[in-house]
Every structure is written in structure tokens, then in C-alpha cells.
């Protein structure tokens, strides 16, 4: 078969076979036991040309409702932010995207320096001493953080806020299943009469009564899954009381306006950096980040880039602290992470460089303004009701008059991707709806959204008021 990706011609093949000293291609595979060698072709569809592939993919895309064309009010951990055009142009440089992991530093200064810059930016945003070169996603970053904590202090119990992203908690449960580390969930305040502004935040009573000398770490997310900003400092004080570590899960965009978890006492900060210049990609690739205070640096999972000098004394960068890594320590490594998300980290670095501290602040501020505008508008229509009262960042919970799943289906016909239905992950919030509003949504889109919600709710099936 002739392929535009395989340069070897039939004639060259003959010559090469004879150099190797075999008569046919088949002879190259004699080491494979006869009975294992396939007699027939694999059962795969007939090959498509480039043009046919494009048409095929267009047909598939037609079966999707994408956020380019529809207004997206869905968040729950993955966000539809504006991505400056320049980001794609940078990550499309072949020198970046077709390179392997920078094992040969002399011809990899590009990616090494960019990672060093990424590490610095993440450390700056989180207020930590160091960050690694990225992890798969926020969920696995949290898993690695818990492992680190438990190994560090030898304790086997982890307290995690129930307001931490359920997807993260699931990955954590799977990962820790046979590890001997126990997980306990801390509830959030949901007394409906509670009007001290703490509704939706972590329940300190519960925390107090569960924390003890076996607690390896407390995991808290802020803004939490409901969009509500937690009092990290107060949680960290609790952790310190028993010498447990505080692991904070933070949205990096929010850190444009909110105090860095480092300054508030977190020991490890992890999270999802997809909102920094990476598209939603139907959930992957994402970009886990991982930042620590000094004592934990040599225990960090995965790749790290460090500064050094070349033989002429010029600054340069290399992969470093590899004595913790799987390819050197094998079963004694701090983690098994090898390939991870360098290109996504480059996208985030480019994004942050373009936004600058002012731009990031502006994005965060617009999120706050637009989310609150949407919230207030929705409440005004009387078609949704208030659930929590604590102030939120870019996302909030309401309970619409009709069930979220039905509402979402109706909204799709209006070119709107509706919010997240909390029912299955939080039975205690049955019928509640988590709505995200980024800076990308214009007032016009928001007003349209609110109107459509109102109209659908007036016509629709009543949401169980229970």
C-alpha cells in the first residue's frame, strides 16, 4: 500500500531487504510464532483520503452542539473562557508541538524555559514556593497531593470537603481504594434558614469533630464546586492544630482577585488550569497543576525544570530532581507520571503572558459581575429559587421551577448549553442547578438565557419542590 506518510518506495524496499539479508518483509517477523501471525487484515474501515476524512468529521460535528455556536452556561470544573488567538499560534509551532519530552536540554531550551515560566506563574498565583511541570488534570493532581501528604506524615486519613468537585473525589476514591488511606467527607452548610452568609461553605462543626492526629490532610476547594469562596485560612488553622497538611484546590482564574492559598496557609495547592487558555476539548486534554511549599519540593510528582548554567556560564534549563522519578527510582519513585501535559502548560503560560496581571484581574472581575448579574436576573423572574447565600465567584446554585435535565433539553433547542444538574451527585440538592457565567457571555446572551429560562419554566413541568 502506498501511503503519503511512508516514504519507502517498492524499489527502495527491495534494496533494503537485501541489505538486511532477508527475502521478504514477512521474513522480518519470523521471531513471532507462526500461530500468532495474523492471516487476515484487521477489521477496520477502508481508508479515507484527507478530503473524505474532513467531510466525515464535518458530519460528526453536525451531531454536536458546540460552545462556539451555542451559549455555554455549563461549568462544574471546566470553563468556557475567552482564549486569545495568539495562544493557538504559539502552540502550533512545530518546534513545540512535535517535540518529545526535553531529554536533550541543549536542543530543548524552548520547552524547558517555557515550563520554567509556567512553574513560576503557578507558584506566583498560588503563593507557593514551587510548582511542577504539570499533571494530567485537576483530579489526578489532587490524588497525587493526597499521596504526598500521607507519605509525608505517615498518616492514613484524609478529610475532604463534600463541596470539592465530585469528579475529583471519584478519581481520589478509585486511586486510594487499595492504598490503606481512608477518606472522610466533610459536609457543607445547608441549613436553609442559615442566613449568616455561610450557607454553601464547609461545615466547621463537622470538620472539628472529625479532625484528629490521624488526619494526614484536609482537602478544601475554593471557589468550591458551588462557586462559593471558602475561608481557607480558618481551615488551615484547623489543620495546623493537628499538624495535618492543608491541600487547597483552586481555580487559577479566581486567583486574579482572591488571596493566594499559600498566603492563607495551604501546604499544597492543586487544581485545573484548563481555564488558562485551553479549550474545553470535551474534557481532555486538561491541565493539572501542582504547587507546594518548600518542604515538599523533592516529593513532588512528575517532571520539574530547574535553572542551571552551561559550560560557558550562560543560563539554561534542564529537567531536574530526577532522583524522584520513575525512570531512575523505578518502584521507589514518588509517582509514575511520565508523559503529561507540556503543550497545555505552554498554552497556559502564553495565555497568562498575554493577559498579564491586569488582564487576569479583569477576567476574574467580569466573571464575578456577570455571574451575579445572571443570578440576580434569574431570581427576579421568580422562576428559580435561592439555595445558598454565601458570595460566589463565577458559578452559583439555584433551583429552577422545572427539573434541570428537562430545562437543559429545552434550552438546547434555543442554542443554549444549560447548567449542571446537581441531582445525581448531591441528592440533598435534588433539582438544583449549577450555572456558570464567564467573561465570554455578553449581557445580550445572559438576558436571552434568563428570558428563555423564564419562558420554559412557565410552560414546563414543575420541579419537585421537596
Amino acid at each position, binding site marked *: 500500500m502506498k501511503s503519503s506518510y511512508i516514504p519507502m518506495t517498492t524499489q527502495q524496499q527491495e534494496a533494503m531487504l537485501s541489505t538486511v539479508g532477508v527475502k521478504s518483509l514477512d521474513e522480518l517477523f519470523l521471531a513471532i510464532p507462526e500461530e500468532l501471525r495474523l492471516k487476515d487484515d484487521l477489521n*477496520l474501515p477502508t481508508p479515507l483520503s484527507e478530503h473524505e476524512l474532513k467531510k466525515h468529521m464535518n458530519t460528526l460535528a453536525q451531531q454536536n452542539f458546540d460552545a462556539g455556536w451555542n451559549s455555554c452556561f455549563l461549568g462544574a470544573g471546566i470553563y468556557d473562557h475567552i482564549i486569545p488567538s495568539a495562544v493557538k499560534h504559539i502552540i502550533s509551532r512545530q518546534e513545540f508541538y512535535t*517535540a518529545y519530552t526535553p531529554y*536533550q536540554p541543549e536542543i530543548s531550551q524552548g520547552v524547558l524555559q517555557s515550563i520554567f515560566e509556567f512553574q513560576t506563574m503557578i507558584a506566583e498565583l498560588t503563593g507557593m514556593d514551587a510548582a511542577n511541570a504539570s499533571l494530567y488534570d485537576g483530579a489526578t493532581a489532587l490524588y497525587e497531593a493526597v*499521596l504526598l501528604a500521607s507519605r509525608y506524615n505517615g498518616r492514613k486519613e484524609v478529610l475532604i470537603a463534600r463541596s470539592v468537585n465530585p469528579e475529583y473525589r471519584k478519581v481520589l476514591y478509585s486511586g486510594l481504594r487499595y492504598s490503606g488511606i481512608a477518606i472522610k467527607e466533610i459536609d457543607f452548610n445547608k441549613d436553609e434558614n442559615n442566613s449568616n452568609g455561610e450557607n454553601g461553605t464547609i461545615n466547621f462543626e463537622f470538620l472539628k469533630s472529625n479532625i484528629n492526629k490521624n488526619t494526614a490532610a484536609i482537602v478544601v476547594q475554593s471557589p468550591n464546586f458551588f462557586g462559593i469562596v471558602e475561608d481557607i485560612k480558618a481551615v488551615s488553622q484547623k489543620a495546623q492544630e493537628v499538624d495535618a497538611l492543608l491541600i487547597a484546590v483552586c481555580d487559577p482564574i479566581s486567583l486574579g482577585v482572591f488571596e493566594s492559598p499559600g498566603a492563607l496557609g495551604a501546604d499544597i495547592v492543586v487544581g485545573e488550569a484548563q481555564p488558562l487558555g485551553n479549550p474545553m476539548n470535551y474534557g481532555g486534554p486538561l491541565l493539572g497543576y501542582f504547587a507546594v511549599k518548600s518542604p515538599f519540593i523533592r516529593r513532588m510528582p512528575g517532571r520539574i*525544570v530547574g535553572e*542551571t548554567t552551561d559550560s560557558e556560564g550562560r543560563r539554561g534549563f534542564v529537567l531536574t530532581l530526577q532522583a524522584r522519578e520513575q525512570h531512575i527510582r523505578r518502584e*521507589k519513585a514518588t509517582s509514575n507520571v511520565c*508523559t503529561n501535559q507540556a503543550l497545555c502548560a505552554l498554552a497556559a503560560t502564553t495565555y497568562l503572558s498575554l493577559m498579564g496581571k491586569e488582564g487576569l484581574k479583569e477576567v476574574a472581575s467580569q466573571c464575578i459581575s456577570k455571574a451575579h448579574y445572571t443570578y440576580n436576573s434569574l431570581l427576579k423572574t421568580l422562576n428559580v429559587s435561592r439555595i445558598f447565600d454565601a458570595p460566589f465567584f463565577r458559578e452559583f446554585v439555584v433551583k429552577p421551577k422545572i427539573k434541570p435535565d428537562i430545562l437543559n433539553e429545552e434550552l438546547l433547542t434555543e442554542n443554549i448549553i444549560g447548567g449542571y444538574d446537581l441531582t445525581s451527585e448531591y441528592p440533598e440538592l435534588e433539582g438544583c442547578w449549577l450555572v456558570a457565567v464567564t467573561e465570554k457571555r455578553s449581557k445580550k446572551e445572559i438576558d436571552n438565557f434568563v428570558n428563555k429560562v423564564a419562558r420554559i419554566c412557565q410552560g414546563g413541568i414543575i420541579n419537585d419542590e421537596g
Partner: protein
Amino acid sequence: MMRDERLIFEKSVEGRIGYSLPENDVPVVNPEELFAGQMLRKADPEIPELSEVDVIRHYTNLSKRNYGVDSGFYPLGSCTMKYNPKINEDIASMEGIAQMHPLQNPLSAQGNLEILYRMDKYLSEILGMERVTLQPAAGAQGEMTGLMIIKAYHMYRLDSKRIKIIVPDSSHGTNPASAALAGFEVVHIPSDDKGCVDIKALEDILDDTVAGLMLTNPNTLGLFEEDILQISKMVHECGGLLYYDGANMNAIMGIARPGDMGFDIAHLNLHKTFSTPHGGGGPGSGPIGVVKELVPFLPVPLVEKENDYYVLDYERPLSIGKVKSFYGNFGIILRAYSYIRTMGAQGLKTASQAAVLNANYIRKKLEDLYEIPQNRICMHEFVLSAQRQAKNGITALEIAKNLLDEGIHPPTIYFPLIVHEAMMIEPTETESPETLDAFIEIMRRIAIKAQDDPESLKNAPKTTYVSRLDEVKAARTPVLRWKK
């Protein structure tokens, strides 16, 4: 060219902007009114302030200090640095496919779900497995997932004494690391003098505490484990499972299948075998396939087809749960999907055949000047040893650095650990005979110089943006971030 080593932070100028955002068109909410003061940021983070041109120039110029597959030959063993077809990049950035939220109603994501569904089918066929999960984000995560399944399987059978995972000494570091992380005890097994699993040693290890064996086949020496059927029989008979590290799958696509060899679980590195670009270290994708018996343990969700609709199936009580959020690195899966659809069965087989021929061709042309510990027909890669050259001070490392000056990315060096001065050469099928010849000629020239004039090879590279870097210093006094 202008030498500019400044970091992006060192180019920042207060008040400069590189963004263009819509004006806020809703009433401004002042964070200070909403949030307690202590919650708000006091000191600005040191995120640099630049204009678009500054940023573009900075990263464009950084890119010039990097080497990609489009720059030239990249025979990095075990990494399958094949050419990444451009059409796949176009497909991956189609708005209607990439701008999708993972939590959308599946009815509104039928196109993407169909891709996932089909990929499960295609990769199952290629691996000879029953079912594939696309969730793992890389090979190592595939391993971890596979080991969790092995654990879950034995636990489900109440066979909890199985705590050992056997790993050959030639294996990749992620194998033992994954096994350890999954809570297993790691047992190393030596290679025999043919470079393959030592059957005798295996026999000695196998008992009812063995949960499974991890194997790369062809192994990291580029050799097909000829006794694979016997090995799998032995492991199965003692109640263990076989895990296939698919990093070397590029040798045998359409030629042989791990499932047929007796493996129970197998990962694929889509960023290697299926030609998705490696991104300077990711994102990748490491789907795993399993035999029928293990399907119940796969992570949730799987994509199923029900009455002409694709749905996400979470109702899998024996599932190990989730190893990563959502459905894996969809953007990478998409590229691999495009690759499979344009290659077809014949194309994949041709690719493997050409990859194997290319490796053997180089091997033949270097065998007189370099030591090749297992000098017989190899698969898609082979390992040579620079022992002879090292005697004159020209170690594998020195050879690698000399290749840099020739505009070639060096092979993998010092791996596998069982070969002294190892250089693991994997040309892949996308390299032309002319490129192979150019590489061979350079390697021969180096060998001759190593003999005649070793001094001339010292202190390479000389033409790169930076010269040899002090890795020891970096590790001793780690500087991991810029500070003002």
C-alpha cells in the same frame, strides 16, 4: 542572531497589555463589597505585562531553541517519534468538535460520543481485546489503570494474597513505579542471554502470591519475546494476569495482537504508535484494552449504543471507578482516530513493516563499527552499545551530544539499564532511506573519529543555543522558579 536569554518576567513592563477583552456590559460588582477583606488578594501575582508582539516574539524565539519531528530525524528509542500528519491537527481544532463541554447532555454530543465508541472498537480490534477504555491520559496512567483492574479482579475473586507484580529488568521505569503505586510488591525478573524473559527464573518466581506479569513485547531491546505463549500459559496457570506495555506496538500493528498472545490487559500510547504529536511532553493518551473477563472492571463511563443513540454507561458495579476526569484526552484520541481512518488496516500493517525494515537496515549498516549485544533480526528498534567507543572516552552521552551538532535528535541513551552504554535506536516508518543513510554515515563517522581522534568529539554540542548544561548543579541547588 540576537541572543536573548531573558525570561518572560524580565521583559515585563508595568502598564503594558497584551489582551483584548470585551468591555464589561453588566453592572460592575465590586469584590470588596461581596467578600471579606482577607479573602481578597493583597499583593498582585508576578504575571508579566507585555503586548501581543512581545509575547509572540518571546515564544516564537523560544520555539527556535527547540527541536521537533518536522525539524529532522528523531530516532528516540521506545518513543516512536513518527511524523504527525497535518490533517490530524486540523481535525483536532475543528470548533464543532473541540469546543465541547464534557458534561453536556449526551444527546447534544452524539458526534463526539460516536468517535469514542468507534475508537473503542478499532483499538479492541488492533489489540485483539474485548473492550477498551480511553480514559487514561498516558501510557503510565494506562499501566496504573491496568494494575488497578488486576487488583480488583483478584479481590473480586477473594484472592487477596496476590500481592506481587513481576517486571523484567529491561522494563521501562513506569512499570515498577505503577505497580508500586497500585499497592503491589515489585519482583524483578532477569533477561536471559538472548535478551528475553528468563523462563527458568520466571518459573522460580511464579506462585500463588503473583498477581501478574508486565511485559513489553517487542521488549525494550527491540526483540520479540519468542516464548510469549509459554510465558502467558505459565502465568495464567499460576493464577496471574498478563499486562502488555504497548509502547512498542508500532512493530506489530496488523501483524500480531497482544490479545492473541495471551495478554489480559494492554495499553497503547496513542502519542507514539498512533502518530499524535508529543507536545514537548504531552498531552498523550494511554487507552487500555482488556479481555472479556475483565470488562466489568473497566473505569466508568463506557460509551454504549442504545437505540441508535450513544450513551454514557456509568452503571457498572464492578468498575474500578474513575482514573481521570471525564473520557480521557479526547483531543488526542481524535487525532489517533483520524490516523486510523486514513491508514486503514493495510496502512497500519505497512507502517509496522516499514518501521521494522528501517530498524534492521540501520542495524546492519552499523554492526561492524558498534557493539550490538543482540545482533539478530530486530523489530522496530534495536539497542547498540557504545562500549567500544567508551573505552576512548566517547560514551553514549558524548555520541548523543555530537549528534546534536549534526542536526539529529539522539537515540535514547542508557536505557534499557541492562545494556552498558546503551543507545536505543528507533527510526519509525516515516523516515526515508535517505535520512537513514545520512544518519548511518554520521554514526559511522563518529565511530571512526572515536577511534582515531576522540578529542575532536569532546565538548559537543558546539552549535546549539546553549552548550553542555550542568545538571548536577541544577539538582543540588534547585532553582525551580524565577524570583524578582
